[in-house]
C-alpha cells in the first residue's frame, strides 16, 4: 500500500510504462524541434529494432507459440504504428491539435469496451469510475491554455 494505492505487481509495471512513455513526450518534442516528425518517427522505429535485437538473447523465443498470440502480437505493432500515422493525418488534414489529441485520448474507452465484451473482463464500480476518470484526465492534460491576448 503506497499513498492509499494497493500496489499490485501489474500496477507497478503499468506505472513504469506510464513514466517511460511520459518521458518520451519530452524527448519526442526535443527531436521534432530539430527534424521533421516523419524522420523522427523513422528513427523511433529504428530504435525499436535495436531494442528488439538487444532483448533477443534474453527473450526465450521458441517455436511453440500459439498462432493466435503471434498474430495478435504482430498485429499490435502494426496497429500502434498505423495509429501514429493516422493521428498525423488527422492533424495534417486540418484538425486543431487540441481537439484531435483530446479525441484520440478516448482510445482506452474502446479497449475497455472490447475487453469487457470479447475477453469477459469485469470491473468493479470503482474501477469503472476510475477508467472514466483516467480518460477524462488524459483529455484535460492534452488541453493547452489559450494564449493570453494583450487587452491594450
Amino acid at each position, binding site marked *: 500500500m503506497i499513498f492509499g494505492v494497493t500496489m499490485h505487481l501489474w500496477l507497478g509495471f503499468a506505472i513504469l510504462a506510464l513514466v517511460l512513455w511520459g518521458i518520451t513526450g519530452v524527448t519526442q518534442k526535443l527531436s*521534432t524541434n530539430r527534424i521533421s516528425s516523419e524522420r523522427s518517427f523513422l528513427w523511433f522505429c529504428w530504435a525499436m529494432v535495436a531494442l528488439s535485437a538487444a532483448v533477443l538473447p534474453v527473450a526465450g523465443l521458441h517455436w511453440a507459440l500459439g498462432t493466435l498470440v503471434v498474430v495478435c502480437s*504482430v498485429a499490435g505493432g502494426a496497429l500502434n504504428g498505423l495509429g501514429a500515422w493516422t493521428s498525423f493525418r488527422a492533424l495534417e488534414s486540418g484538425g486543431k491539435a487540441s481537439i484531435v489529441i483530446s479525441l484520440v485520448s478516448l482510445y482506452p474507452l474502446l479497449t475497455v469496451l472490447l475487453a469487457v465484451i470479447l475477453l469477459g473482463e469485469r470491473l468493479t464500480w470503482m474501477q469503472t469510475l476510475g477508467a472514466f476518470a483516467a480518460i477524462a484526465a488524459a483529455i484535460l492534460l492534452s488541453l493547452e491554455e489559450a494564449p493570453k491576448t494583450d487587452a491594450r
Partner: protein
Amino acid sequence: MTAVARAGAGPIFSAREGRSMPVSETIPTRKRPAWLFWSLVTIVLWGTWGLVSKIASSGMNAYVNQLLYTAGLAPLLVFVAWHVRRNETGDKSQGRRVGVSWAFLTGILGGVGNIFFFQALVKGGKASIVAPVTALFPMVTVLLAVIVLGERMGRAQWAGLALAFIAIYLLSA
C-alpha cells in the same frame, strides 16, 4: 504545453508530436471533416492494440511480445524510410544529428515502456484497467515539460493531473 507525446501507446508516437507539423486551424464546416475520420480511425487502431496485446500476453512473455510487435511495425518502417529518402534534403546539420539522437532515445524509452506495459498484462493486469492507467502518461510529460522545457501548465492540465491521481487510486481498488 507544446508538442509532446507518445506514440503511443501507448500508442507509440503520440499525436501530440504532430503539433510540430504545419496545421491548418480552419475546420471544414459542410462535409464531414477528414480530421474527424482520421481521429476516429486512430481511436480504433490504438483501442484495438490494448485488446490484442492482452491476448498476446496470455501466451508469451513481454520480451517476445516486444520482438513480434517490432516485426509488425517493420512494414511501416520500410514505407516511412522510403518516403523520407524520397524527400531527402541533403541537410546534414548538427541540429539534425541532435534531433535524430532524441528520436532514437524516444524509441528506446518507448520500447522499454512497451515491455513494462506487456509485463503488466502478463502479470494479471486486465486490459480494461492497464490501458486507462498507461494512457495517463501525459501527466509525466506535462510535469517534465514544466521542469525541462520551462513550459507552463494551464488550469485544465492541473485539473487533469489531480484527476489522474484519483483515477489511479480508483483503478487500483
